[in-house]
């Protein structure tokens, strides 16, 4: 209980910081008023409405989605190094966007975000399959290397296409490292709903996934159908990561950072872990974003770089702690 | 009493905080076949490694023919003493001949070409282990017994007066065990090579060795000729095993029959 309240407070502070800090500093009073009594002539209210709230919503969708997706994948594969980013979601999205833009000639943000979705999903599923996930053998080394390989391949193709088409580097950079800037142009409403459906599915399946994580033989003994649960869980992961990528671009390592923290807070009950993951994921992303805006102000460090800078050491830390003989 | 080949004095061995062997003083005879015996975890392999300077003792020292082993230059030592560790894994696709050639390393200068003497030593080693016909085959393609003999050929090609082997017969069936041990004894009889092995099988050890070292969980139990070492009292002390010791009907060496 105490931990729940603690988490909520941490998240609320993060939200306040996101709304409050920027070129124009905003007070708590302004925030409240902007939501209760919106005044379109007040520039502060306009900023909150049209710039910072979309940014906040994007961060909430992406953070909660990636956090929960990470927890689902890690329980499913029993692999503490599994992460949607490592699964190739980043590069899959980037690839789909660039190819989509190339084929249709459209480069508006809404269209590109929509393209990111199937790209992310396809990449995640391919890496999962290539890494032996379907056979229940998605060991840390395999998954990480399969992801690295697919990432390298897709990113090479992306840069080839981008350089060949002389598209602006800016588009490319967004789809290589995620950012929450200009979130207002991304399809927030649709993606929020999609992510919510994914989250609901994950919560629904949680007890089954727990059974499956004991090994498929035992799971069968407990009366579950492993293939069906795996499919459902992957679908949930895809819905959540896909919408995260669509609103915030590829954010690496969040799915790696969140699960161990969630487990520490929530213990070994997957539903509680998932809820904690959502809150922790959103908080980390908001703090990382705020830090990225402050460190080199007025220029901004993309939040995707920030999470990678925190996440990569975490990856090493976890890799070091893997027990010898644990499934590789 | 023959001359002493390897000698340990108050040797204490261990890994970090775990002491495996404490204050062991031991002399192994020159020009003989010696086997080190004992239950799992008594430090047989550790002792062998210390004698080959693969691990540093925590205290005490090992000497080779009267010279302290830590003071011998690395390459000079490799020309006098060869060690075959347990269960080595061959590089993928390497041929038997290429594997054996690497045993000549201590004899070759940095830029020295492959010499007549090197080739001869390798051929001799391959003949001794009976692999001369298979020299060009890849090690991975060989049977377990042949593979082990290829590794033994490598240390034979090293051409040293002292030869240490850690469980050279593990994973082999009985026929191959006999084969490997007889070829080691032939080497000993023909060249006077001092052979020291770690073995599991007490009866084979008694058959093929001139000298035995029996270790128990609390250190040395007995050392000496097989008849002296393999007694019912010693076995009880080393292994906690109640056994009958009778003469081997074929060779007359002691044979252990668990009760």
């Amino acid at each position, binding site marked *: 209980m105490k931990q729940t309240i603690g988490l909520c407070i941490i998240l609320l502070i993060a939200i306040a910081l996101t709304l409050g800090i920027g070129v124009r500093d905003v007070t708590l009073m302004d925030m409240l008023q902007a939501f209760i009594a919106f005044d379109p002539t007040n520039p502060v209210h306009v900023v909150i409405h049209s710039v910072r709230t979309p940014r906040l919503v994007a961060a909430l969708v992406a953070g909660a989605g990636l956090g929960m997706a990470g927890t689902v994948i890690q329980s499913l594969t029993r692999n503490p190094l599994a992460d949607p980013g490592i699964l190739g979601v980043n590069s899959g999205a980037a690839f789909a966007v660039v190819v989509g833009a190339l084929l249709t000639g459209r480069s508006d943000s809404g269209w590109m975000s929509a393209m990111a979705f199937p790209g992310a999903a396809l990449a995640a599923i391919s890496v999962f399959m290539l890494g032996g996930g379907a056979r229940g053998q998605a060991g*840390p080394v395999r998954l990480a290397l399969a992801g690295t390989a697919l990432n390298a391949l897709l990113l090479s193709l992306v840069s080839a296409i981008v350089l060949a088409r002389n598209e602006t580097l800016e588009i490319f950079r967004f789809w290589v490292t995620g950012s929450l800037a200009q979130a207002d142009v991304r399809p927030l409403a649709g993606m929020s709903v999609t992510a919510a459906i994914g989250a609901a599915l994950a919560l629904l399946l949680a007890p089954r996934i727990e059974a499956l994580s004991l090994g498929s033989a035992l799971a069968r003994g407990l009366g579950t159908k492993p293939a069906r649960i795996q499919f459902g869980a992957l679908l949930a992961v895809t819905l959540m990561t896909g919408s995260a990528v669509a609103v915030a671009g590829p954010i690496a390592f969040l799915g790696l950072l969140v699960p161990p923290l969630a487990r520490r807070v929530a213990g070994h009950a997957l539903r509680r872990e998932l809820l904690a993951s959502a809150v922790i994921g959103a908080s980390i992303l908001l703090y990382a974003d705020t830090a990225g805006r402050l460190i080199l102000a007025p220029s901004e460090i993309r939040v995707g770089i920030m999470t990678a800078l925190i996440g990569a050491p975490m990856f090493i830390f976890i890799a070091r702690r893997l027990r010898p003989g644990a499934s590789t | 009493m023959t001359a002493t080949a390897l000698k340990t004095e108050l040797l204490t061995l261990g890994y970090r905080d775990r002491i495996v062997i404490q204050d062991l003083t031991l002399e192994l005879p020159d020009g003989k076949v010696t086997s080190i015996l004992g239950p799992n975890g008594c430090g047989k392999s550790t002792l062998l490694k210390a004698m080959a300077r693969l691990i540093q003792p925590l205290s005490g020292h090992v000497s080779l023919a009267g010279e302290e082993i830590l003071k011998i230059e690395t390459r000079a030592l490799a020309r006098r003493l060869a060690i075959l*560790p347990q269960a080595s894994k061959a590089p993928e696709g390497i041929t038997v001949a290429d594997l054996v050639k690497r045993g000549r390393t201590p004899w070759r200068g940095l830029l020295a070409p492959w010499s007549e003497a090197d080739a001869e030593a390798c051929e001799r080693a391959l003949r001794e282990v009976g692999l001369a016909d298979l020299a060009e085959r890849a090690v991975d393609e060989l049977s377990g017994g042949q593979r082990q003999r290829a590794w033994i050929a490598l240390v034979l090609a090293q051409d040293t007066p002292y030869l240490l082997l850690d469980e050279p017969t593990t994973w082999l069936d009985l026929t191959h065990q006999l084969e490997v041990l007889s070829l080691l004894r032939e080497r000993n009889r023909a060249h006077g090579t001092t052979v020291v092995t770690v073995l599991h099988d007490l009866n084979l050890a008694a058959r093929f060795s001139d000298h035995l070292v029996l270790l128990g969980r609390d250190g040395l139990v007995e050392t000496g000729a097989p008849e002296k070492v393999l007694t019912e009292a010693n076995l009880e002390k080393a292994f906690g095993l109640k056994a009958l010791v009778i003469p081997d009907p074929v060779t007359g060496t002691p044979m252990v029959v668990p009760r």
Partner: protein
Amino acid sequence: MRGGLVLIGLLLASVLLSLMIGQVMLSPVQLWTGLMTGTGPASLTLRVLRGPGIATAAGVGAVLGVSGTIFQILLRNPLAAPDIMGFMSGAGLAVICGIAFGLSLPLPLLAAVGGLLAAVAVAMLSYRRDAAQAGLTLILVGLGIGFFTSAASSFLLTRLSPQDASDAQRWLSGSLAARNWGHVTQVFGLAAILFVITALQVRALALLELGDDLATGLGTRIRRARYGLIATGVLLAAAGVAVAGPVPFVALMAGPLGMKITGARQPGGRLFSAAVTGAIVTVLADLAARSVVPGLQLPVGVMTGILGAPYLLWLLAREMEAGDL
């Protein structure tokens, strides 16, 4: 022996092909006249347009191939390569640091320092008391260092002006555009020195391949030999990175590919075939990068990425079949 000649033939053929193909197509005869007379369009192509780039590609490929093979033999793992284990992105990060903070040190020095630091970091962070699975830990930690150095490079790019950032981005993906004979001299000079050093260590490498205990028994000072080889491998990779940026997957692919062609099993032969194969792969990748999209030179790293990633996936599938991972 025959395999070696085949490889060298392939290298010459790829160089020739690469010289011929481009915006202006040249015949071998034109190239020959250009080379002999020193005049005409072919001469310009040889001296300025294509020659230096192709020679740099060959040099870079050779050093990377040897570097990868040293690690693959030393760690007895086909996945052990400076690109997978983060040494090359470490070298890349050091160069980006140099640019971002305006250090005026020579690139090879920066790259070497970065590569060595990354190697030290990987070695220290993957050290664990229980030796079990040390190889896997090493590769995972290496991947992690790679992730971190790439993130740090992206971070530093934010500090640069848009033009510098775009140049640096290009360099980071491995580029051979606008290389001159200075680059060629640099990479071949370093390669010559480092290959001699490698040759002196081949015998130690052959022994370490047999396992530490046996190597010690055969008179090797294993610690010294291993550090020497690691340093050589990292410096070779850094020599490549310094002229072409962190070109991915050449170091990973060259050794096994060369071994397939020549059938070499001994370290010496493997290193030689890796050098030549690395050169072939890089020259061909550079050719593809120049000619896939007419009028545009893609970074060579893009092409090696497209070639190398499927190889890595195949390798994973194979290791999985064998149950080694």
